């Protein structure tokens, strides 16, 4: 009885130790935070941050080489979430929310070359060879990849006008005299 307990305990200790050493020697070098960050980024691979894609941007963020405000399509919300994740205090006051933009194709200039169609990473452009292309405005996030591809200058980014549907109450300015219903 006691020999069984002793032998199993020894076996456990030895094998556990081996596993521990193996995990140390054979560990795959990967920053877990990088994976988390990658999940937070939009993943549209638009390249507006200057990195090839979202994975590379996530790696740079994890190494602390990139600013949390790097991703224009993620907006302020993403910048705040990244700052929280990385435990850095981001100065978001200077980070003006970029005006949302959408690509628009001037139909008179479009020759249906499918260059923009091929450049769009999220399939926001519809079209076919020798057919006029169009932008799906609820998918387009204004990364501008298509603009550089267009040979006829038919594509331009246009700011999205504020609308009743997207308007929100401004934050009250502190300390102003206010008039109220008595």
């Amino acid at each position: 009885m006691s020999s069984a307990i002793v032998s199993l305990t020894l076996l456990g200790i030895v094998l556990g130790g081996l596993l521990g050493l193996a995990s140390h020697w054979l560990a795959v070098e990967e920053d877990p935070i990088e994976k988390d960050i990658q999940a937070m980024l939009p993943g549209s691979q638009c390249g507006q941050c200057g990195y090839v894609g979202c994975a590379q941007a996530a790696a740079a963020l994890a190494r602390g080489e990139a600013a949390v405000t790097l991703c224009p399509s993620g907006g302020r919300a993403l910048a705040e979430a990244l700052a929280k994740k990385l435990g850095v205090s981001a100065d978001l006051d200077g980070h003006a929310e970029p005006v949302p933009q959408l690509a628009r194709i001037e139909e008179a200039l479009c020759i249906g070359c499918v260059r923009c169609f091929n450049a769009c990473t999220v399939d926001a452009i519809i079209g076919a060879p020798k057919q006029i292309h169009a932008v799906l405005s609820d998918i387009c996030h204004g990364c501008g990849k298509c603009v550089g591809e267009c040979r006829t200058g038919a594509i331009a980014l246009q700011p999205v006008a504020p609308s009743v549907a997207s308007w929100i109450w401004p934050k009250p300015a502190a300390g102003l005299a206010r008039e109220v219903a008595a």
Partner: protein
Amino acid sequence: MKNHPIRGGVHPRYWKELASGQPIAAFPLPARLSLPLQQHVGAAAIPLVEPGQRVRKGERIALAPGAMSAPLHAPTSGVVHAIEEITAAHASGLPQLAIVIDSDGLDEWAELPAPLADPFAAPPEEIVRRVAEAGIVGQGGAVFPTAVKLGMGKQYRLDTLLLNGAECEPYITSDDRVMREHAAEVIDGARIMAHALGVAKIIIAIKKNKPEAIAIMREAARAFAGIEVVGVKIQYPIGYAQYLTQAVTGRETPAGRRNAEVGVVVQNVATALAVQRAVRHGVPLISRVVTVTGTAVSRAGNFEVPIGTPVAELIAHCGGYRARPRFLVNGGPMMGFQLPDENVPVVKGCVGIVALAEEETARQPEQACIRCGTCMDVCPIGLPPVEMAQLIRKDRLDDAARLGVGDCIACGSCAWACPSHIPLVQYFNHANGALWTADRQQRKNERLRQLAEARSARLEAARQERLAAQAARKARAAAPRQEISE
């Protein structure tokens, strides 16, 4: 029936006496009407008419693209002048697309759907369909599509239709007048809605500061079994649907849930009138009762106003201003908003226009919070306004959301009661707007990620296919000799 206890609430001065004695008067036909495509919760309506086209009264001029929307109808006969951007009847004052109709003065009716002879013999779906086609939305100001609410009997186990005649906003008297002058139609409309919902019990809740309306509605309800008229206590915001449900039935709706989940559907009395007209007479929602009041207006009154009438014409019809108004408010002063200008139209959710004179307002400098806790005492939801406002001031919106800012109903009780005159509701409106925008961005990003992944998967599949085809070709060419590996 005794009221159940409710939390918080305030007691502003009601000023109902300005307009409550004025019977509902017909409103002269305006020369030009502007009908915004978005006057309701949900998707904007899609125009069915073109500039220059002649339309007749009651004709559908814009369709609802889905269930969560509402069609529009021409309030009078005339010619479509344009479909153009006008200043929205909205706190933002931003432009909004509207169908603009020049009235021809004939007021000629289009052919209306045949009236339902016996609505109680018709299947509930038929009632819901007619209400949807009539473009009826919540007339109390929430503008939620009524047909969607009437279809909730399928989704939830309901037992009561609560008819909201509380009208707790100061100044506004349109529901009061509707109940006093159209009691029989309101009760008929309520019975039709109860039939559509499949409930047997109707409770009509009226605030006790409207004794005439209570008496008249009691009298009109006497003939029918299962209808109860209840006086509710004079307390703001008793007219808020969830709050009223709790006061009348004792059932509290859980945070972030629908009222229907506790078995009660709340409809406004003016909505009942609109439903009655749509079902019994085939008349769509083309006009509504609007109170024009405030001490800055020469003659306050209640009017049956065609939807789309410019507010300026309402003011002119009431004899213009007696004094220069400090504020021109759409809706009541507690939850309404300041109109961006006088040319905005009356929309489906407009219960009243209040022109506040100088003496009705007070210029109060904002002071530092003294942590008196008054705002926490008066909050009908039981939220901590002082904590939330402080977090929002520091842009800690997620923390404010954890405290429940999303449950704020923007009733304004906290800001009204605050001795330091801190604009608390504006903080919460701002926070909820910003949180909603962030949430929408988050969902868009999620969608973009899926699209990007789908695209790379598709391109990869196409590449594999190409390679396989190439390999097959090579294999065929070199078939007798040897195997080729790609």
